[in-house]
């Protein structure tokens, strides 16, 4: 069967959830194999996890370049493996870096590129990807018409399903091409203990209606009661109430959770572009005319400082 190469994203020595989603999606269009880059001693356990989720072979490459140089070493590795193994498609997570890696790999392979797919299915002429565009007002289906399809897939596009496969490790020596920017220093993001925003099944976001940085406490308490990630609108981030890394919207993170709760968010186009593909949408806002209410499955017109704590207490009591 056709080999579908999946770049396995990892952090702190563990596989990140979007990689498991990609392995799951890859099984729909062929036989998944995995690439694990720069994981050091964690490579063996990461490869084992990839095997549990369906990777027949796991290509492992290590080297200081992956940490010390930006993007290009990963491009070198993926391109080399894709060419050597004659793969049928390359799947990469839709992160900022993932998309850049995919773009350069596509160019080197002479292949078309599709980014931010939310669905993947087998077609007669290769994989067909669904994208959600124009602030999720349109669904576009497209495919790559030249070369080996290179496709990036958004987190939460599939539920990871275990499917034990051999997971045979094959070590690869990569010929690095150079010409990459130097990473002078790297400061890992301090973990809040909450789920990663783009990966979480539930997201609770606060906006202008939260009123102040301290106001986010009620948002965080609700999020913690649900095991959810915390998001913020651009207005709240621009006001300095919450970090930019938590911004949901066109210029922030694009999220697609099972449940999205918008508190004190009016629902401007910028924000909608980042959350409109959420499966269930709930809003709490004082303004009954707020455009967010056009999107919701359930809306409460009311003061978030009363509604959210009451909801949090209810969840705690159940």
């Amino acid at each position, binding site marked *: 069967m056709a080999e579908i190469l999946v770049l396995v994203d990892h952090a702190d020595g563990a596989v990140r959830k979007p990689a498991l989603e990609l392995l799951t999606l890859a099984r729909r269009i062929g036989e998944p194999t995995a690439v694990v880059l720069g994981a050091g001693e964690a490579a063996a356990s990461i490869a084992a996890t990839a095997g549990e989720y369906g990777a027949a072979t796991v290509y492992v490459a290590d080297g200081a370049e992956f940490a010390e140089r930006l*993007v290009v070493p990963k491009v070198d590795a993926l391109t080399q493996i894709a060419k050597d193994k004659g793969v049928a498609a390359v799947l990469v997570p839709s992160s900022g870096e993932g998309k850049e890696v995919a773009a350069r790999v596509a160019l080197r392979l002479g292949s*078309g590129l599709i980014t931010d797919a939310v669905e993947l299915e087998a077609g007669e002429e290769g994989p067909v990807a669904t994208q959600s565009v*124009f602030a999720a007002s349109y669904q576009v289906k497209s495919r790559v018409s030249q070369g080996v399809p290179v496709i990036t897939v958004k987190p939460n596009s599939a539920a990871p399903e275990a499917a034990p496969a051999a997971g045979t490790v094959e070590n690869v020596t990569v010929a690095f091409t150079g010409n990459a920017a130097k990473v002078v220093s790297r400061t890992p993001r301090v973990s809040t203990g909450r789920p990663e925003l783009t990966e979480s099944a539930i997201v609770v976001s606060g906006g202008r209606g939260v009123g102040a940085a301290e106001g986010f406490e009620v948002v965080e308490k609700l999020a913690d009661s649900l095991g959810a990630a915390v998001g913020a609108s651009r207005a709240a981030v621009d006001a300095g109430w919450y970090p930019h890394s938590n911004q949901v919207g066109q210029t922030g993170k694009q999220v697609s959770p099972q449940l999205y709760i918008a508190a004190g968010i009016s629902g401007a186009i910028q924000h909608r572009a980042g959350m409109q593909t959420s499966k269930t949408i709930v809003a709490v806002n004082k303004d009954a005319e707020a455009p967010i209410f056009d999107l919701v499955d359930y*809306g409460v017109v009311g003061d978030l400082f009363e509604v959210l704590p009451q909801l949090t207490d209810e969840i705690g009591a159940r």
Partner: protein
Amino acid sequence: MTLRIAVCVKYVPDATGDRGFADDLTVDRDEVDGLLSELDEYAVEQALQIAEEADEAEVTVVTVGPDDAKDALRKALSMGADKAVHVNDEDIHGTDVIGTSAILAKALEKTGFDLVVCGMASTDGTMGVLPALLAERLSLPQVTLLSEISVEDGLVKGRRDGDAATELLEAPLPAVVSVTDQSGEARYPSFKGIMAAKKKPVEELDLDDLGIDADEVGLAGSWTLVESAAARPARTAGTIVTDEGDGGKQLATFLSSQKFI
């Protein structure tokens, strides 16, 4: 030595308008007004700031697009860029990002540059891959998705706030950079700037000028194929209640009915 800064900008449909697709499944540009992509304003701003810090610098804005794309160039010129390059050719219609990067790379080579500055993504396609493709085509280092940027002693330095970590990056010039909306508010054009922009040179180039064959670009030259584009079905109207003291409890009941709690 003059520091030559080229800024790549895009003319995009206004996101507050009703965006859609034409019969050939390309973006319908007739039904909605266009403007300079908001995220490119940050690129123009950072280019102008870098130029202001340099002893001697020149900022050129470059775009690929139809006649109306001149509006995007005028906006950048009125903010303070020195000159503009407009690649315009009817055979470009329908070109995908890989093709666009080929055209821009040729235009940049023809114009000459020490630093290429891009926005983090366009506000229409939102792919965010053009800067990486340009770096690949021009065989230059990419220093992308920067929230802070500076140029000194022939080096470009910047801060990239990624999902998992914040990285400090550097590369020698020439290089391709992209900046995020965290890099600093873009200035508004002054009246003087708007008047001055009318006199600034806009160089027109077509595919022949760049030595690109028509069949390498456009819909026919695209390496991807859109099979269908459909408006997302309207959401069925949700339940909306007004809080009269038990709004949180009612919401809990809804979330419970959906098995979230």
